[in-house]
């Protein structure tokens, strides 16, 4: 070689002293452990300090009731009190039907609109609006729009479909509608993206083998879409399960839509009973994870491999 020695590394650990350390480093590196994993540190510290620790703290707090009693007193209090216990049922009675309807309605619509058509981008853009606006604004709009003298009732009265204004807000239906308005676009867009991840030539292949439209959907697309549906259901359910502002604003927060998050909020900020509030929050988390667990367990029995398409 005639070229200059500019590439010489400047430091050089002596072979003897570095060999043990190098050996250990090799063994660790073989298992994927080296200094670059330190990049995880800020994120991990943050999640542990602001998510795990409060959760554990809340869990501990829930076993230390303010008014004495055994460690499980708070849980006994929650499950023993019909008024508190009923919040679980009320929450699920809102969240499960809303999530189901959102997914069920999205499938045929997304299936129909999965191809390319003019205005698709505009449609999807319009559908993101309620998601970005959030539940507080949706609630305000619903109060105006679906209220006793709102446009909806006026129109229904006008065409003679009803004789008296429907009570659509400040009850179960108000919250339900708000969950549909923010949840349906969410489910739709997700399912649409799952659908476009399925290679369209699979359906064409099925057609060439003599399957009609219904069988193509039932036997080819649906099985490939099913895991995505389960995921979508979970995410929509999470969204609906955390219902809070709309349950207060367009619901009936003292009775039929007194959902579990309201109970938790009241315990914390109206009664200042943080141990009890943490108890309710923990119960809420456990129930949500249980529902998701059931759905995901079902999902794991489905085919979840490649769907031949790109994306999703």
């Amino acid at each position, binding site marked *: 070689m005639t070229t200059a020695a500019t590439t010489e590394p400047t430091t050089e650990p002596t072979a003897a002293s570095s060999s043990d350390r190098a050996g250990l480093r090799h063994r660790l590196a073989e298992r994927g452990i080296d200094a*670059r994993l330190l990049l995880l540190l800020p994120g991990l510290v943050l999640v542990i300090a*602001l998510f795990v620790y409060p959760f554990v703290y809340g869990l501990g707090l829930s076993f230390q009731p303010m008014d004495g009693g055994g460690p499980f007193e708070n849980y006994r209090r929650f499950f023993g009190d019909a008024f508190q216990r009923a919040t679980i049922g009320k929450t699920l009675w809102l969240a499960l039907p809303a999530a189901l309807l959102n997914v069920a309605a999205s499938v045929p619509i997304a299936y129909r609109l999965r191809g390319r058509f003019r205005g698709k981008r505009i449609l999807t853009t319009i559908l993101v609006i309620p998601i970005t606006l959030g539940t507080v604004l949706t609630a305000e709009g619903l109060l105006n729009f679906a209220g006793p003298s709102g446009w909806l009732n006026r129109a229904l009265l006008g065409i003679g479909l009803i004789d008296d204004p429907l009570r659509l807000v400040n009850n179960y239906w108000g919250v339900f509608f708000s969950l549909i308005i923010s949840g349906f676009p969410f489910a739709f867009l997700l399912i649409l993206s799952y659908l476009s991840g399925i290679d369209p030539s699979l359906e064409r292949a099925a057609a060439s083998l003599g399957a009609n439209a219904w069988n193509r959907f039932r036997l080819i697309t649906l099985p490939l879409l099913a895991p995505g549906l389960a995921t979508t259901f979970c995410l929509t359910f999470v969204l609906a399960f955390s219902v809070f502002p709309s349950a207060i604003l367009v619901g009936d927060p003292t009775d039929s839509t007194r959902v579990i998050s309201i109970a938790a909020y009241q315990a914390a900020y109206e009664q200042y009973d943080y141990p009890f509030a943490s108890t309710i929050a923990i119960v809420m988390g456990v129930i949500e994870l249980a529902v998701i667990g059931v759905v995901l367990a079902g999902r794991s029995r489905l085919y979840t491999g490649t769907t031949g398409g790109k994306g999703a």
Partner: protein
Amino acid sequence: MTTTPTRDIPGPAPRRLVASPLAWLVWGAVGLFLLALLGVVASVVVNSLGSRWFDTWLPSGWTAQWYREAWTGFDLFSVIVTTLEVALAVVVLSILVGVPTAYVLARRTFPGKRLVFLLFLLPIMMPPITYGIPLATVLYKVGLAGNLSGVILANLVPCVPFVVLTMTPFIEQIDPAIENAARMSGAGTFPVFTRILAPLLLPGILASAILVLVRTVGMFELTFLTAGPTSTTLVVALFNSMNAAGIRAQQSVDAMAVVYMLVMLVLLVTALRFVNPTQLVSQVKEEPLE
């Protein structure tokens, strides 16, 4: 070659929509939904501009007085400033923390990786109220809640994992050989990040920053639980004024709602220049849930 968004896959030739009853049903449902959506949004806007509206299709007159009232009555200017302060701080911090995390999760296998992944997935999967209440309790205990820093910290909890999940596919798209090539050219970890990865990830970082911005401005629960009187963001102020019915005229609350809506729409329009609508909905891909 087409120039349509990459997600779109050329489907079968367009069919005539009148042909099938399913098409009618689909378009009918979509139409009804859009109509309801329009009604919800428009009734807020109309109410905020109407002088008096009772039992008629439209208000009897039009006025901008509610906006003046809301602007001064709710101190909207400082609320908007607070909102932007919170949002910007959350965006910057969650990018700084989230991108390196996403890098490690996208590139490396190591013992306990699944657990780490789960840790970053849970804050997105849990209702904010469930961890928001214990978190607020802890933050109040250490004196960090009730002010701007508490709101920012609380909002980081879902936003950092969100950045991690958004950035992971972007990082996976970059061929590891490019990084290896940089290292073989003598670049250490820091130059690899600043000279190679950062420029290549810029679109992803921009997309995820804008998504975090939209989420933070729209985040109600966590801000609500941790905000004090001086650290209220727009959406919380809106909720408070709606919930304290009777103190202000309904139209004044609606005026504030319209201001909030405009802020969100500006963000949305900006966001859609960098991301597609589906991305706004969810970054949760298939694998994390397995």
